[in-house]
């Protein structure tokens, strides 16, 4: 005991003595991340590169997105089981097996049904419904292979058969209820799956690791945001901006982001935010300082995304990529495809468009 206390004290003394040189940066991350690359910034996405060198980005479904799906599937399984039980009990199926008692017949059918539903529900649905079960369909998630391909029946079988291991360790009723409860290990804790999902980069449980699968969010991807430029003075202010003024690409992104988000902010916050960039820009470009900074950033947006493409391409619209959610290519806004919507105070129709970077990049 004394030696233990001594060693603890020695450890404390060492810590105090070495407190100064400890730099957090010297401790290595468990997951190496190149912070300077935005692509590697922490997010819930996984990038898959196909053999044809095409990259897909998936949103990974973590444990908290998967729990509702699991619970729905559990309810569906229990409901199916109860339905079959009552069907068997009420039908005359017991008469088909005269050599078994009525109780034994129902018992056999129930056990078989339970086995089939519990073990093959997931296998069946995930194989024939493109990696979805009813719960996953409701939660808008699906299982795919780690290389992006649809899940095969073999993979579906492996990952569903290992579900039992993921639910481990099973606790006995003894620990939960009372010391005199029967020592039946029937209470799943799911700790194996939780720990496994927490430490893998794609939130894979044991079954997923064994089958080479992952669960991703099955949602329609990026919908171009609508940008409303409701003030008719925007276009005239845009004309005042010198023609030789070129915005850098990060600045274009910043202005586009502001234009997209400004409608959801109160006016005071809009003014506060827009002044951050507009004030030095207006001073640089010789625009009157009493000009509204919000209006000025809108004018920059208008000049970059509305006026410029028209002036460049005149009447022909340019394809700049096909968002997944749309069947037709997104085109640059032109007079004809601008979607004017009436606004409460506008003398001229509000300009509503979708920002597309000139280079075809996703903002």
């Amino acid at each position, binding site marked *: 005991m004394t030696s233990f206390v001594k060693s603890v004290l020695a450890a404390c003394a060492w810590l105090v003595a070495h407190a100064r040189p400890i730099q957090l940066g010297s401790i290595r991350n468990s997951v190496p991340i190149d912070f300077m690359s935005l692509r590697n910034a922490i*997010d819930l996405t996984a990038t898959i590169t196909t053999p044809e060198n095409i990259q897909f980005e998936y949103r990974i479904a973590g444990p908290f997105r998967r729990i509702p799906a699991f619970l729905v599937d559990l309810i569906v399984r229990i409901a199916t089981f109860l339905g079959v039980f009552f069907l068997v009990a009420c039908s005359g199926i017991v008469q088909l097996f005269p050599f078994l008692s009525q109780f034994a017949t129902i018992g056999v059918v129930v056990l078989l049904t339970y086995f089939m539903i519990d073990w093959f529900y997931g296998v069946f649905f995930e194989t024939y419904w493109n990696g979805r079960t009813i719960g996953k369909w409701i939660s808008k998630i699906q299982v795919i292979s780690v290389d992006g391909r649809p899940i095969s029946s073999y993979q579906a079988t492996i990952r569903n058969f290992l579900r039992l291991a993921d639910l481990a360790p099973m606790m006995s009723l003894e620990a939960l209820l009372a010391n005199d409860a029967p020592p039946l290990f029937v209470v799943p804790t799911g700790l194996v799956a939780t720990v496994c999902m927490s430490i893998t980069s794609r939130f894979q449980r044991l079954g997923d690791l064994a089958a080479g699968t992952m669960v991703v969010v099955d949602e329609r991807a990026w919908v171009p945001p609508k940008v409303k430029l409701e003030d008719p003075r925007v276009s005239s202010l845009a004309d005042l901006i010198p023609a030789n003024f070129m915005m850098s690409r990060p600045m274009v992104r*910043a202005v586009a*982001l502001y234009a997209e988000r400004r409608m959801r902010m109160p006016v005071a916050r809009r003014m506060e935010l827009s002044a951050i960039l507009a004030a*030095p820009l207006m001073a640089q470009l010789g625009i009157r300082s009493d000009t509204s900074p919000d209006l000025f950033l809108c004018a920059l947006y208008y000049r970059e995304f509305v006026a410029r493409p028209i002036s460049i391409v005149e009447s022909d619209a340019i394809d700049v990529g096909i968002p997944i959610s749309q069947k037709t290519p997104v085109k640059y806004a032109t007079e004809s495809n601008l979607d004017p919507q009436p606004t409460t105070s506008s003398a001229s129709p509000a300009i509503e468009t979708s920002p597309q970077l000139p280079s075809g990049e996703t903002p």
Partner: protein
Amino acid sequence: MQLDTTSVVIAQRSIDEILDLSLVVARTYLPKIVLFAILGIAPFFAINLVLLYPITDYDRLSMASTYHATNGGYQARYLWTQVCLVYLQAPLAMCGVTYFLGQAVFIEQPTIRQVFGVLVSRATALTWVLGLLRGGLLAIAFACIIFVSPYSNTDVEQTVYLTLCVILVFMVRGFRPFAPEILLLERCPLFTSKKANANELSYGRRTSWLHAGSGDLFSVQIVITIISVAFVLLACLGILYVCGVVFGIRNWGFWMDLIFFPLVLWLMATWSAIIRFLLYLNTRIRTEGWEVELKLKAEQQRMLANARLMEGTSS
């Protein structure tokens, strides 16, 4: 500090995405979060252990009881008191983790000394808001009362008062959860004088503004509480299982009461601090357009830097 280069992608997220992301953040910064969590938790863990130790003698307590309470009743009382204390003390203990996460978002690597310096500089505000108004230090005072008179006949009343205190703090934290972030990361002063800069926000005004447009925070807090309770139960069951396999001890015993149960509670407190920080980012993005502010400020900085460069070149 490059404002538009962040280690966590700044985007608006739903609650399930925030919970999932908290696991990724915890995994990415595990060593540092554990370090700051241990530094914050250790004093509270030791104080609670010492102060609550007298009420773990269940046999003696039940024998001294005047209303025939059982051992199980006293054990439940101890466990509930431990839960209440940890709940009240958690924001105070997690200040280091909160500050570290705030810096880590902007790819800063604060040292222990820097974090400690910030905590000392904000000690008054933290003590007032988290220690007194939100009960972090009051919980210790309450534990002192238990320590002084463990065989008091007012144990039921004590537990009721503590529970009421926790409910009150739960309501306050449910509607206004981001006090540690406002105090540590935004460094808002507790009070502002009339002579102060008009743009400088006091803690009270900032709290009102930030939480005004985020009405669903309370329901989010309830969801997080339910999940935390489930995880505490699962973790305790898992520890019991491991103890059963390794040592053959399958029952909830002394070690579970004194060491593992409080450890699991503090683990949940650490995780809750990460979730709260991500919720704070989400709230700022939603209500204030924070990601827009970062981008615009980064552009402003670039412009000013370019202008200085041009001036230097021309001169």
